[in-house]
């Protein structure tokens, strides 16, 4: 353990992390290189970058589902050993269990972790009320709309009271109106839960509206290009914040930075496809 007080160490630290894959034809491919990131406790960090640049890989390194080829990942000052129970993860695609009803989906986490059934179900009902799904407990995921399914997912994740919340483009499949509603639901839950969030997205406005800090990544292999603090006051109302002048100015600055990477990434993809 380091000499610093573990209570003051950041929630997530990635120090000079690289991750290489072996492709099916046996070649080594670098997904992220010399990646440095630090997320303070209770901080909301958004990560933007061109498609396919290795954003999701970064999250997998933090969950413990993947381990770095070199460098170090630290959670609250300690090393990552397998899947950390303090982590919650929101997936891009639907990750609800289709054979379980809404309440059985939400209750999954506490039951896996050995909570008594009654306590777990009581807690699940509480969380479903918080995401405004009371009355839908016994429905199956396929009977719900996309936005409702996302709210079930959020309840399923938040019920475990994660100290670290990793989100991999969680709202990208939703329509624009539903997405804005979900942003407010998320900020609401987050302000109560005080978790540290890493929110990966390709939508720059979404990143600025939600986060305290925006990380811009280079096109693959991903490394941090620049970090922008977002000084917009909280609590924020996402549907209105996007019309504020500070928001628009910041969004222009970051986009100028991001655009080069997007163009470079697209050119590389075309070259690869040719």
């Amino acid at each position, binding site marked *: 353990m380091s000499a610093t007080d573990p209570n003051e160490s950041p929630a997530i630290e990635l120090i000079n992390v690289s991750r290489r894959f072996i492709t099916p034809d046996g070649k080594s491919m670098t997904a992220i290189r010399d990646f440095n990131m630090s997320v303070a406790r209770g901080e909301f960090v958004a990560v933007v970058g061109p498609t396919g640049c290795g954003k999701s890989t970064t999250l997998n390194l933090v*969950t413990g*589902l993947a381990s770095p080829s070199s460098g170090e990942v630290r959670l609250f000052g300690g090393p990552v050993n397998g*899947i950390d*129970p303090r*982590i*919650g*993860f929101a*997936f891009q*695609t*639907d*990750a609800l*269990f*289709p*054979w*379980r*009803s809404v309440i059985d989906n939400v209750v*999954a*986490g506490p039951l*896996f*972790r050995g909570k008594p059934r009654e306590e777990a179900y009581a807690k699940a009902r509480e969380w479903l009320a918080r995401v405004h799904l009371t009355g839908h407990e016994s429905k*199956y995921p*396929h009977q719900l709309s996309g936005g409702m399914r996302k709210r079930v997912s959020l309840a*399923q*994740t938040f019920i*475990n009271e994660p100290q670290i919340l990793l989100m991999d483009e969680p709202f990208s499949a939703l329509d624009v109106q539903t997405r804005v509603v979900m942003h407010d639901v998320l900020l609401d839950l987050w302000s109560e839960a005080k978790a540290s969030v890493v929110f990966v997205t390709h939508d720059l406005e979404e990143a600025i509206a939600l986060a305290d800090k925006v990380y811009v990544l280079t096109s693959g292999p991903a490394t941090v290009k620049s970090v922008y603090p977002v000084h917009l006051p909280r609590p924020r109302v996402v549907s209105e914040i996007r019309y504020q002048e500070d928001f628009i100015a910041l969004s222009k600055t970051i986009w100028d930075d991001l655009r080069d990477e997007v163009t470079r990434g697209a050119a590389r993809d075309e070259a690869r496809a040719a």
Partner: protein
Amino acid sequence: MTDTAIASGAIFRAGTSDAEIEAAAAKASRHRKHMVLFWRWAILAAILGGWEIASRTAIIDEFFFSSPSAIYERLVEWITEGTSEGPLWFHLWVTMEESLIGFATGSIAGIVVGIALGRNRMLADIFSIYIKVINSIPRVVLAPIFIMIFGLGLASKVALSFVMVFFVVFANAFQGVREADRNLMANAQILGAKGWQLTRSVVIPSAMSWIFASLHVSFGFAIVGAIVGEFVGARYGVGLLINIAKGSFDAAGMYAAIVIIMVVALAAEYLMTWVENSLAAWRPAPLQDNQ
């Protein structure tokens, strides 16, 4: 409901009420159901009638092809008076017992081994070659071997049923486990599922539709196993009835035995569908094209 109406090509004038549209849709759906039933019976009647006429007018040789009326008479005789080998129900029960035991043991073993190998890549890589080798044996040639080893009684038929069922169920369970959604697995793991919890809550439910698909087919295979076994050597069973009918050139007897097996297999198929539907309440309702 309106979808059905649109599908059936009805065009409504402006201002038609929902009730009218629904009534029209219900009527169209009833009509469709009647059409299906009518044609099903009509085709059956045509086949049986054609067969009967052809054999009475000697277009086909009744000695080889029998006739529906002769088969019916044989069935009635077997049901009311019993067969030359004793009561029909006893033979049917023996065959069912062999099939059911073979089906139950074969499918349980198939599911367990399929899930175990599906979850463990190393075991799968080691054993896959042996499973391929054994699977390449035509199952019926095992019948004489099993009868030699296990004797003329129940055990040899169950063994044959077992091998008929096992490989089908195993292959599907294995594939089903392999196809389990990576995202769902990752989600369950992050939510806290470990080892057996992960298998029970994600792997088995996702493999379930694959497994059920194989159970539908494999009950038929279980009956095939039992009957082939009886055919090769047995003291009781429907397979024995066929064998005896063959020995006495009794075509009607052979067809009658086939009819009995058909009825049993169909009933089992309906039962299986019912069980599957009641277990899979979570699935979206299939498109209503059966109306």
